[in-house]
């Protein structure tokens, strides 16, 4: 596509956004219910949210780069970038957030059958089904492949028993994509990537309270849950092959790390010394030095983020580089919040006060401690770098 075509597309996009993105949807997201997740039990916070979602859904803009057949707008990467830029320019909120878009969708686009794509991708794009992810188990965190949730083969269906943890929004999701052991004899090639309804009998969830307060995370229990092997012609109840779900999971883990490492760049990599000094008044000299040291690291990391994205675009990045970005970025973000707490002093310690928005500084600080655990711990990232980039033996 030529540059002039792209500029035409940009103009068109601006006009469309002008016409369809209500002013309320151009405000920063403040609360959980400012985010629209879709699903069977979804409700809109207000008319603007509804109008914006529906306009995007009809245009294919909930998943702009997906093919039109599957509910997307079929945009080229360059067009999708223009759309992102234009939405970012006016501060437009995402019309629809979902693990279907971020996780299951990419897996289906890569591994799915045509029948699965037709059904599930369209449901996701249209916000009809809200998905959650069933990966970790209490005994299988970093060592995911040791998972124990078992699906017993009953011919035309499995009977699933076990427990998952860290299933975000499991209590609100309609369906789950879930790693289930289907062969106990074969560690790696004994896992199936199953899809099933959370309303199935025997599924129950329990929210997890975090040290930072309430959370979207749940424990999810499967007690003799019956999962059919197929939902119709060419719509198997699993992605990829039976017992080969680990390939799908690995693909998605890589995808997730890439997303995490690229995400939030602006926030987690910006310098903070000046803002904290403005916000909190005078800073002790040793703390100022720490802030300066942090700012050096943060500004350097932001250049790295830029370089990484540039290289990803042209396929120059090492395939394991997202692990390094995830490691460095999350460790940096934790340090950032330690310094925010230090600069904020006793004010930042407040847990419930209005003045701190209900303890925002301290809750955010605590929440960042999960950054280097979720999506692969820092230790696992370092293992991966050792093995795949440095080629160290036995790593």
């Amino acid at each position, binding site marked *: 596509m030529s540059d002039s075509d792209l500029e035409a597309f940009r103009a068109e996009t601006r006009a469309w956004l002008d016409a369809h993105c209500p002013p309320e949807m151009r405000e920063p997201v403040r609360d959980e219910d400012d985010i629209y997740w879709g699903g069977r039990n979804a409700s809109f916070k207000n008319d603007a949210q509804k109008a914006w979602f529906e306009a995007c859904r009809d245009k294919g803009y909930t998943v702009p780069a997906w093919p039109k057949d599957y509910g997307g707008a079929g945009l080229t990467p360059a067009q999708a970038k223009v759309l992102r830029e234009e939405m970012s320019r006016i501060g437009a909120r995402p019309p629809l957030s979902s693990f279907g878009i971020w996780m299951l969708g990419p897996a289906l686009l890569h591994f799915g059958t045509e029948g699965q794509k037709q059904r599930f991708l369209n449901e996701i794009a249209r916000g009809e089904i809200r998905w959650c992810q069933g990966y970790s188990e209490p005994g299988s965190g970093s*060592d995911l492949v*040791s998972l124990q949730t078992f699906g017993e083969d009953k011919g035309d269906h499995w009977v699933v028993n076990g427990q998952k943890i860290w299933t975000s929004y499991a209590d609100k999701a309609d369906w789950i994509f879930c790693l289930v052991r289907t062969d106990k004899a074969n560690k790696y090639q004994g896992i199936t990537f199953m899809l099933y309804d959370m309303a199935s009998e025997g599924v129950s969830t329990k929210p997890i309270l975090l040290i930072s307060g309430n959370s979207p995370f749940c424990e999810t229990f499967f007690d003799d849950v019956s999962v059919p092997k197929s939902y119709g012609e060419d719509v198997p109840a699993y992605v990829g092959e039976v017992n080969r779900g680990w390939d799908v999971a690995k693909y998605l883990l890589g995808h997730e790390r890439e997303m995490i490492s690229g995400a939030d760049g602006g926030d987690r990599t910006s310098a903070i010394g000046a803002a904290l000094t403005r916000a909190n008044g005078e800073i002790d000299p040793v*703390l100022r030095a720490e802030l300066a040291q942090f700012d050096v690291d943060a500004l350097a990391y932001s250049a790295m983020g830029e370089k990484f994205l540039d290289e990803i675009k042209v396929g120059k990045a090492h395939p394991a580089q997202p692990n390094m970005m995830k490691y460095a970025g999350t460790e940096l973000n934790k340090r950032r919040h330690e310094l925010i707490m230090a600069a904020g002093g006793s004010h930042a*310690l*407040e847990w419930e*006060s209005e003045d701190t928005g209900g303890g925002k500084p301290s809750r955010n600080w*605590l929440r960042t*401690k999960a950054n280097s655990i979720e999506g692969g711990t820092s*230790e696992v990232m370092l293992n991966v770098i050792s093995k795949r980039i440095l080629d160290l033996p036995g790593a």
Partner: protein
Amino acid sequence: MPLYYDDDQTMLAETASQFMGEEGSIKNQLRHWRDRNCKDGFGHGLWKQFAEMGFTGMLVDEDDGGLGMGQVEANIVLEEIGRNLTPSPFLSSSVLAATALKHGSNDVKGRWLPDLIAGEMVYAVAVDEGRKHRPERIACKAERSGNGFRLSGKKDFVVYGASSEMIVVAARTSGSDSDTDGVTLFAVPQDAAGMSHDSVRLVDSSMASHITFDGVELDGDAVIGEVDGGRDVLNAMLMAGRVGSAAEGVGVARGAMDMTVDYLKQRKQFGKVIGEFQALQHRASHLYSEVEIARAVTIKAAQLLDAGSEKADLMASVAKAKVAKVAGLAVREGVQMHGGIGMTDEYDIGLYMKRDRALQEFLGDQYYHAGRVAELSGY
């Protein structure tokens, strides 16, 4: 004096460890009161038990009805408080306020000490003005008024302020904000007219007040020590509080470390107990080394304080800064090595992280005290 406990101190440590591990445990105290959203943030029952154990008045002179013990002994109790995250007004009341009251007249002592020793009353201290600890500057004003004073201004981070029967307030009776002289300490009773608390819960579930003094009228006998000469009393109080909070921090660090090392021996991943992974072993061993050092310098600072050494002030800041660094490392490593479950409220390791954060900030954080070490060293 050797840097280990003598027989009496060893016995005290055993007693305190047993008492705090049972009565003061996370389950029985911190979680108990927190989950009930207790407005005090600690249990008065336990405070009475502290009195029965002789803890409340351990720093009070024998002549005044106390045990006449030193900072080393108070630190022994505080380290156990730290290990068990026991919420208690011990540090504020029995270390900080008690140290200030040592310098009071017999009237002042007679009015406040017996109820402290009996565990009937709880006291707080009001030093900070603003978000950070900067006691070099005192802007809160106490002007002469009749036979007494009239107190105006604001104080922040007054731990357990709203639950305290008396608050030791550092105020300015002459000079300007940054003057060394012209500071006076007052024992302000809870029912003083014109004093209002904005009491907030902190990250560690303790409570702290923003206090506004709106022309609070005080009798002359509210003064602790000399009018305009309160800086020395304030410094003595802060030193005791800093060394004491360092000891509590050592307890927090040890508690977090012990829990984490135990976890490393239990949790399995990749077919191994995770404590077998050398990268974690080295980090745990480094942490152990740092915790030992932090503990050593805290004992040293307490001994110097008890000996009235000139070096006590410097070493108090060294101890406070070192412990803050090390306890911070301990709780961060603790949460990270626990992995996902370390992030859950159900596990105790996160409670150590929260307590550490509040304790770090109390009476000056590591940056403040490292800066102070430089200043006191002359650079």
